[in-house]
């Protein structure tokens, strides 16, 4: 086993009955990495996570973890932890008993068990809540119990399903820090599933963007945010102006603009609204919508290329609704896309 493929999925095909949710997935995850599976609902990210956990049978392909093929290993023997989106705490057990649940099944008893549970609770700051029932805790506290319950088992991989989505903004930041700290202290390999790009960018070492059961792009948060490779990823991370290139040329009302020197092999180009400049430039459009956003002003332009979204400094002179305005799509700022779908 090489460290680069501590957890590896090989030609993994997952299906619900006859409908294939994930076809032929290949993915390698390093030991100690913090990975985000990012994508819209229905992209197969949760399905993939459930297959890694062993909750969903694999149709074909392999899951290897720490050198062993675990494709057919039942979920209760995998040493994979999962923090559920709903936390899934046992309502009839106290916080202490929840954390002790898995350890007791391992046969741990007495002082050893107590020490382990106490340290688990301490690590998430809930020592004083040991005797409470889950229903008496806030959402954030419940999640930390769920985290402690999984972590005391010392899983080889910890999976988290939408770990921040049920929390309010303040707790979200707190939990994000908490997850990073736990990961750093224990070195556990973490994979979390999310549909929120901000969450993935903030937390992950590497992001795996998925669409329709397939991996669209794998990269660092910077890669994904700045250098999306496909129109889907570009759209997902906020490039709202995305255009196909036809033989290196961008089609406009004034004819084709040759961009082959800037983006020789690109299938398309994408600009964030922030990258569009207004007032000067070779293109023209009509202001169809405008809104003030504090530091900036957002415009929706009707152009021969289709609608264009622009966001410019609020200090610049405003353009009225209906007025004609010239604009530029600076080719050097654009993200070149290798796939346009």
């Amino acid at each position, binding site marked *: 086993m090489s460290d680069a493929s501590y957890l590896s999925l090989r030609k993994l095909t997952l299906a619900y009955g006859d409908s294939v949710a994930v076809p032929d997935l290949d993915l390698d995850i390093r030991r100690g990495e913090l990975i985000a599976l990012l994508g819209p609902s229905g992209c197969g990210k949760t399905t993939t996570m459930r297959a890694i*956990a*062993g*909750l969903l049978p694999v149709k074909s392909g392999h899951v290897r973890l720490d050198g062993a093929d675990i494709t057919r290993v039942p*979920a*209760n*023997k*995998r040493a*994979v*932890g*999962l923090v*559920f989106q*709903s936390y*899934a*705490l*046992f*309502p*009839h057990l106290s916080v202490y008993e929840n954390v002790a*649940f*898995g350890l007791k*099944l*391992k046969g741990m008893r007495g002082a050893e068990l107590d020490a382990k549970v106490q340290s688990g609770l301490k690590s998430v700051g809930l020592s004083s809540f040991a005797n409470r029932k889950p229903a008496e805790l806030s959402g954030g506290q419940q999640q930390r119990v*769920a985290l402690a*319950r*999984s972590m005391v*088992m010392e899983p080889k991989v910890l999976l988290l399903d939408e770990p921040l989505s049920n929390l309010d903004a303040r707790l979200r930041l707190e939990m994000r820090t908490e997850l990073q700290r736990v990961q750093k202290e224990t070195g556990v390999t973490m994979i979390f599933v999310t549909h929120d790009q901000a969450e993935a960018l903030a937390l992950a070492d590497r992001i795996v963007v998925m669409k329709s059961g397939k991996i669209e792009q794998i990269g660092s948060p910077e890669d994904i945010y700045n250098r999306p490779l496909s129109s889907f990823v570009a759209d997902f991370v906020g490039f709202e102006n995305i255009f196909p290139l036809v033989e290196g040329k961008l089609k406009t009302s004034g004819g084709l603009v040759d961009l082959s020197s800037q983006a020789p092999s690109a299938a398309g180009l994408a600009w964030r609204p922030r990258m569009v400049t207004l007032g000067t430039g070779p293109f023209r459009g009509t202001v169809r919508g405008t809104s003030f956003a504090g530091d900036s002003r957002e415009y929706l332009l009707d152009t021969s290329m289709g609608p264009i979204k622009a966001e410019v400094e609020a200090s610049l002179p405003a353009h009225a609704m209906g007025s004609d305005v010239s604009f530029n799509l600076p080719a050097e700022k654009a993200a070149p896309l290798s796939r346009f779908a």
Partner: protein
Amino acid sequence: MTIRSLFIPLILFLVITFLIGPFLIIVAASFSAGETLAFPPQGFSLRWIGKVFTVESFRASFGMSLFLAVGGTAAALVLGIPASYALSRYKLPGAEIVRTIVSAPIIVPGIIVGLALLRYIVVPFQVGITPALFLAHTALVLPYAVRVVSASLDNLRSDIEEAAVLLGSSRLGAFFRVVMPNIRGGILSAFILGFVTSFNQVPVSLFLSGPGVRTLPVDMIAYMEIVFDPSVAALSSLLAFLSIGIVFLAERFLGFSRYV
């Protein structure tokens, strides 16, 4: 006072009169000192309450009813809990049909259930009286067991079972470790409801009772056909207070009404 403002109190009065009235009459009659079942009671005595405990057939049929209520309900739960679990957790083909069949004994009149059991099961297969009654009471209680247990299963998230499995438990272990403890209230409620249903059951038991083997309500009817003294009223009162007591305790300690 307008007619409108009298209407609601009138309805309330009628409801209370017809629901509670007969019960009060029976209770009053059971303390009568007279020789026949009559209202208003003649004098006051505890002689009929005392007599209830001396009638040999009442003792035997009470034992039978208790056995059927406890045993039949327990059997219905042993069948009903797994059935409810399967119906609530898996998308099974024909689940609706199973639900309907299981609920049938509630909908079909007891007379018909009794006749059908007698004609098509008890007689052709030569089933003894006690096993036949046991079978019938199990079937009659099953719908309540499935309904009440299903309700508490539906309120329980299924991901706690997956959580238990990922912490090292087997699927079956997860059922006993995290499902059963969380539906305990529902199971106890189903038990009490089933017990009361079975204990008060008349029509089916009427068909299936036989020489020397009767349930208490059937025995009471038989007794009244021969002897018209207030001891039946006394027994009815005792049973009613027993039922009220059980339901009161259940509500007090289990929040019974949440499940029914």
